[in-house]
């Protein structure tokens, strides 16, 4: 029981920090995935007086990923009844060319402004429809979501750091006595603080394993997968190698930092 209580408080504090980090990673992935969806659906339509080649279009701005030429057939179809075939062919030739441009990623409002400017530099292009208003609203909503999550994660991080600092004082008191006694018999600092570092590393391992178990379970949960599918997001909730490496490194670094702070703050009893 004594051994469990020795570990409990730091493990809980580390767990909450790791949990916050992983939630932040998931939200970030979800936002990126949503941005990708938006990028797929978002396009800019341009009107050109003459046919534009693939190279010309792609060279205008690096943001442009693909393009498709919009056929004027639907417009002509409506006029079809009253016009002869020759006239229709002439009309087709005189109509401007319409292109739909797809982007490499979901652009920022500034990127759209620059893109529009670059497109209009081409003399053949007479009109650019960038759907800026709709784009801005969606983009701002995304930013808002990300900022709220960042503030939330930051707050939890600060609260848990305060928790860890409080824990640090308890540890300092608890370990100082042992370190002092060992020092009285000539123990070098590395030996008298070895227990502290071992405890810190064990706690980091315990919390990393616990967080691994929690998120492995959640990532395999049918309910969670269904929910994400319903909102159109397809992401990896927990990457067993990459995410675990991040969380484990954070836990080890934090607990070792905590131990180092105790050793530095240790004052020999006179």
């Amino acid at each position, binding site marked *: 029981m*004594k051994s469990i209580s020795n570990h409990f408080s730091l493990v809980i504090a580390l767990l909450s920090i790791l949990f916050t980090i992983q939630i932040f990673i998931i939200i970030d992935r979800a936002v990126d995935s949503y941005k990708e969806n938006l990028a797929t659906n978002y396009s800019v339509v341009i009107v050109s007086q003459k046919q534009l080649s693939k190279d010309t279009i792609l060279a205008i701005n690096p943001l442009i990923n693909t393009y498709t030429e919009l056929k004027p057939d639907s417009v002509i179809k409506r006029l079809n009844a009253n016009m002869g075939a020759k006239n229709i062919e002439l009309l087709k030739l005189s109509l401007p060319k319409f292109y739909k441009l797809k982007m490499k990623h979901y652009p920022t409002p500034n990127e759209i402004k620059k893109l529009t400017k670059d497109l209009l530099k081409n003399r053949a292009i007479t009109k650019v429809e960038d759907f800026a208003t709709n784009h801005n609203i969606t983009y701002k909503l995304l930013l808002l979501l990300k900022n709220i999550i960042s503030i939330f994660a930051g707050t939890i991080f600060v609260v848990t750091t305060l928790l860890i600092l409080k824990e640090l004082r308890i540890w300092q008191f608890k370990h100082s*006595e*042992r370190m*002092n*006694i*060992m*020092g*009285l*018999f*000539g*123990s*070098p600092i590395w*030996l008298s603080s070895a227990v502290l570092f071992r405890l810190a590393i064990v706690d980091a391992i315990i919390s990393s394993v616990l967080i691994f178990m929690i998120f492995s379970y959640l990532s395999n949960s049918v309910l969670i997968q269904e929910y994400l599918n319903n909102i159109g997001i397809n992401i990896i909730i927990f990457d067993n190698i990459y995410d675990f490496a991040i969380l484990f490194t954070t836990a080890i670094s934090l607990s070792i930092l905590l131990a180092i702070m105790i050793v530095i703050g240790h004052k*020999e*009893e*006179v």
Partner: protein
Amino acid sequence: MDKVIIANNLSLSYTDNENIINKVNFSINSGGFVFITGASGSGKSTLLRSLYGALKPQQGSLIVGGVELNGVSTSKRNLLRKHIGIVFQDYKLIKEWTVEKNIMLPLIINGYEKAVSLTQVDSLLKHVRLKHQAGKYPPELSGGEQQRVAMARALSHNPILILADEPTGNLDEYSSQLIWNLLEGANNQLNTTVIVVTHHIPENMNIDYKHFHIEFGTIHEVN
């Protein structure tokens, strides 16, 4: 005879204002048994602290075991402490360690092999009559038993010098006698220098000893 402690013009103080020990001179022979007495607050424990390097001399010089403690480096001081056994009035045992491991502490620090350490601890536990308590933790023991553990710890690494700060201050007759016997034994059989700070010198000591008395910041030998 070799001197294990030499103090020249030694002044000790916790602050810059007032010296607790003021310009004292004394020396202690290797293998000697010394009692230091004095009223409460006279500076007995302060002097003892300076002998294991917990308090640096304010003035003068203090040489213990050939190490000059004025301006000593931490590593040199640690090296000296490895050869000293200390007994405190409040025992200073590590609460989360068993009796056995507490006694083993100096042996761990001195890098003894585990098998050698266990044999040594086993022998000491018999000497302090605590063999049956080896696996217990200090808070589970009485004050007398804890002091016996502290005594065994101080003897475990065969130190050249034992410093004891009122080792029987809070103890019953039985534990007190056991502690005095152990200190006498270490001095007699192992030629360990023993310095004991105390209010009362036991009447039934079976060895020759020196007696220093501290008063008004100075130290003098009592014949």
